[in-house]
């Protein structure tokens, strides 16, 4: 599929990759741009300058080493727990939906929702900070009442694509889900 250019809600460019493995299974991957080197530099420099300023007044070298330590640990934590590299959604007909997000460090979290639990996939609106955004979400069935929705699982939580991207994903998801 051709890659259109999409943006997330903050206007940053993201890329959507749709792969159709067969008529029964489709995979959507939303990739977020990598960590910019400038941002890392700014962060590192600010921490080190601060540490140097403290060192200048206290003349304690432990400050400098701890600053290096803090930057390293902070970056590691950031790429391991915060920075999401890409999020993917696999829709498999009659089996279920799999959501996974992989972090910049390579860590991957995956969860699979069986088809028997899924009611539908919809695009929803939400108030986010001071704006209204759209998001894609999976509606889960309530086991006791077949018509009720017990909970909602939002998709692409960290990349937050805009509506045009969501609509595209939504349409091809519905194509698979509605096939019987």
């Amino acid at each position: 599929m051709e890659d259109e250019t999409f943006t997330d809600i903050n206007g940053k460019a993201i890329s959507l990759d749709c792969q159709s493995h067969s008529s029964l299974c489709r995979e959507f991957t939303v990739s977020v741009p990598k960590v910019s080197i400038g941002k890392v530099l700014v962060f590192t420099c600010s921490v080190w300058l601060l540490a140097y300023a403290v060192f200048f007044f206290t003349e304690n070298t432990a400050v400098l080493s701890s600053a290096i330590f803090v930057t390293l640990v902070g970056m590691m934590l950031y790429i391991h727990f915060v920075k999401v590299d890409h999020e993917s959604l696999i829709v498999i007909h009659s089996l279920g939906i799999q959501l996974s997000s992989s972090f910049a460090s390579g860590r991957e979290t995956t969860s699979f929702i069986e088809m028997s639990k899924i009611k539908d996939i919809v695009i929803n609106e939400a108030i986010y900070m001071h704006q209204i955004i759209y998001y894609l979400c999976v509606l889960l069935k309530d086991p006791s009442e077949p018509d009720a929705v017990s909970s909602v699982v939002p998709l692409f939580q960290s990349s937050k694509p805009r509506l045009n991207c969501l609509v595209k994903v939504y349409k091809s998801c519905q194509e698979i889900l509605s096939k019987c």
Partner: protein
Amino acid sequence: MVLKVFFPQCCNRADSGLLVGRWISGHDSAVVLAVVHYPFIPGQVKQYVQQMKAQSGGELSVLGSWSLPKDGQEGMESFLRDLSTIFPQERWLQINRQLGKTGFTCQVLQRDQNGKVIQRETKKKVEGGDEEEEEEEEKVIFVHYEQKKVMFSQLHPLENGVPDPKTDPPSELRQMFQSVAGSAPLFFLDRYDDGPLKSTHWQSDGREASILVELLKQASVPLCMLLGWLLSIWTWISNARVFSLFPLRFLSSKLSTCVQLSHRTEHMRTLSSAKPAAGHTHFIRKANMVVSFLVDVSLGMLLIWWLYRDDHISMLANTLVPAADHVAKELEELLQWLMGAPAGLKMNRALDQVLGRFFLYHIHLWISYIHLMSPFIEGILWYGGLSACFGLTFALSLLSDMVALLTFHIYCFYVYGARLYCLKIYGLSSLWRLFRGKKWNVLRQRVDSCSYDLDQLFIGTLLFTVLLFLLPTTALYYLVFTLLRLVVVLFQGVIHLSVDFINSFPLFAVGLRLTRSHRLAEGVKFRVLCEEPGTALHLLMEINPLKCSTVVQNYRTPTYSCYPKDSWAALIKKLFVGELIYPWRHKTTKTD
């Protein structure tokens, strides 16, 4: 309709033969469990399947045929199709794999009531892309799974005990997991056995280890009986009448050693029960208890080894008394400082002197008590150290109790200060209402206005003034002694937390999660396997292990720290009002 075939990875290269497995009711899916190889007598296969069915207690049938043509084996196709008449099934799967190709092809033969074979086939030409028949065809998804992992894994969230009939039947994946786990007897057939049937499926490699496990199980029975007997004696002793008298029972509920003892007894009682574990959770709980007990005891042994090696006990005893003396001296200095004008605060000198002397006298008493005790401390430590052979937790609890006993003077000061302060605060609050001409209406739980007599007003104001001007002095004493008390409580709290950690941390479950991550499954994840155009969709099912935090949450042994505690705000309010705080939880059953 889409057919899902769960196919074990170990059967990928199996010789041609029959597929043995089961259909999952309610879903269009088949779980292939084993492949019975080609040279077979159909009657024997039927008999074998019946036998296995009886042993595993679940449904088991011949699902279809499997062909992986080796060189020189041509023309199997029609033979395999004819087999479907021998094994009457509603649907007959015919799975083919070409050598050198990764993808499978599958044909489904459907049979209706009349016994007439209706054939619908999914024949996706490997070479060509002509899929003109697709609209009519039944589609197949192959889900490959690793038999061993699926067999041993436990899918969470667990249904506690028996599944509830009210909720809907277990989901497809759960049924699939259950059917793999339930057909363990099928996997006993060894590859190298000289039987009439040969089959391919997962095989245990560690027969020897399983023999060891069996031996251990046998050995654990008398051990449990012995333990149970010892426990019954212990219970008999602890239930004796002497121990249920008031002061002893009160004391034992406050001493952390006794609390720890009762916890351990409870654990041992659970372990020594003759009944096997009811479910997976219960089993893991028991295993956790065993492991944490063993770790505890070994840590305790380590402590004993350190304590008794170089006469560390007497060293400790020799430092303990001067330390207590030192604390008392520091307290004395603190009191002297408080009796002056501490930090330039405006204290009432007379009250200050009275309080200071009172506390000084207390410290004096305390020091003489310590000196009276000092010859015995070494002995106490020596015998107390022996308790570590029951486990590190006992030693820690004993330490906590000893700290509590050694800082009893601080506790006393705190109680005096808090009581005085509490009295003042309550007096001031009610007199302030009087000052404004209001009073607390108990019946309506609100403040009402009230007209007081002249003499009531006069005396109230007099007392109010006195209390108001004396408040800073009392508050300062209270503050200082509360801080001291908080230090002690903090220390005891850290000890309690560590004891609690050892008691309740699910070591076995976490170890299982780290070494055999497939054993505790949160769910599954799929990967799209082969991308050959034209073949059916192949997915690889992997097991998504449970998160470590969830493991700890699910399997921790319940202890007292799991219950909700006072919030910080409540604690601060208590401190402000002058209520007493304790490291242990108050039994709040007095309300009824």
